[in-house]
């Protein structure tokens, strides 16, 4: 009798009532509801009684949530107060602790910002995640150059290298184009594979054959 009766009570509203009923007497509360549930099922039938218990659960819900929220805020304030008191009490210890934490967090943030900045440009190339730059930084001049022979050597020796483009920045120089000589400040020498590696839009000409002839 008892077990069959227990099974009859709808699970969800009963769970809500049991878990979220924030009065100081949850045992009496749940017991009373079960007792009246049994009575009601005899008088009103199953459907009406289930509706009754659902209404019970749903009306209990907002108050319970509010109670939970308010208690959470109060508890939060309590934690904050305790933390502040502890800091005040052990000044030296918390000073070192917090300094370490601040330095660590600051470093982490700066590293994150730096790497975000580094990853942010030259994204418009088609395979930008597969393009790498090889540098050899000179200690004496601070220049960033590699030997010209490095490119064919790498193509030969490393099978994972698909293509290589070389670039050289000569600085300012004079350019002779169709018998007219002009002075250019932004100039870069590049090997013929440059347009296979990077996807620069060309003003004139076809990317595949643009740099074949000198």
């Amino acid at each position, binding site marked *: 009798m008892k077990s069959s009766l227990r099974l009859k009570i709808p699970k969800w509203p009963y769970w809500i009532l049991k878990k979220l009923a924030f*009065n100081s007497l949850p045992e009496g509360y749940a017991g*009373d509801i079960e007792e*009246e549930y049994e009575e009601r099922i005899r008088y009103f039938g199953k459907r009406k009684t289930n509706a009754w218990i659902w209404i019970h659960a749903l009306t209990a819900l907002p108050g319970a949530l509010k109670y939970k929220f308010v208690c959470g805020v109060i508890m939060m304030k309590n934690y904050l107060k305790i933390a502040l008191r502890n800091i005040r009490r052990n000044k030296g210890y918390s000073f070192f602790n917090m300094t370490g934490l601040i330095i660590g967090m600051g470093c982490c943030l700066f590293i994150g910002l730096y790497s975000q900045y580094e990853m942010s440009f030259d994204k418009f190339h088609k395979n930008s995640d597969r393009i790498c730059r090889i540098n050899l930084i000179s200690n004496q001049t601070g220049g960033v150059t590699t030997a010209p022979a490095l490119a064919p050597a790498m193509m030969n020796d490393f099978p994972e290298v698909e293509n290589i483009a070389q670039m050289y920045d000569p600085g300012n120089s004079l350019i002779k184009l169709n018998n007219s000589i002009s002075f250019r400040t932004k100039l870069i020498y590049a090997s013929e594979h440059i347009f296979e590696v990077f996807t620069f839009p060309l003003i004139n000409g076809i990317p595949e054959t643009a740099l074949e002839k000198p």
Partner: protein
Amino acid sequence: MVELTRLEEIVLIAIWNLRQDAYGVNIKKKVRELTAKEYFYNTLYTIFDQLIRKGFIIKGFGEPTAVRGGKRKVFFRLTKEGHRALNDAFERQRRIWAGFVKETFFEETA
């Protein structure tokens, strides 16, 4: 002089009426009998909480029974303060209503 809300007053009266077997279900029935209104257990139990906090009633546990899924009944009893609060409420009620005669004919004013 203690102030009681209306519902607190009704619940206190119900508990006083029931004396020995004042627990949730009975109190709900009594309140329905007194006010001809159906209250939820949620409402009643918040009132019980309030009354316990104010010190007007105390709780006590009964024996666990099979009908209630093995849960104990929670009985309520009036304390001294509860009795005093009821007396005060009754006094006040009597003072307020003193000399009142139930009218059967209403004169319309303005």
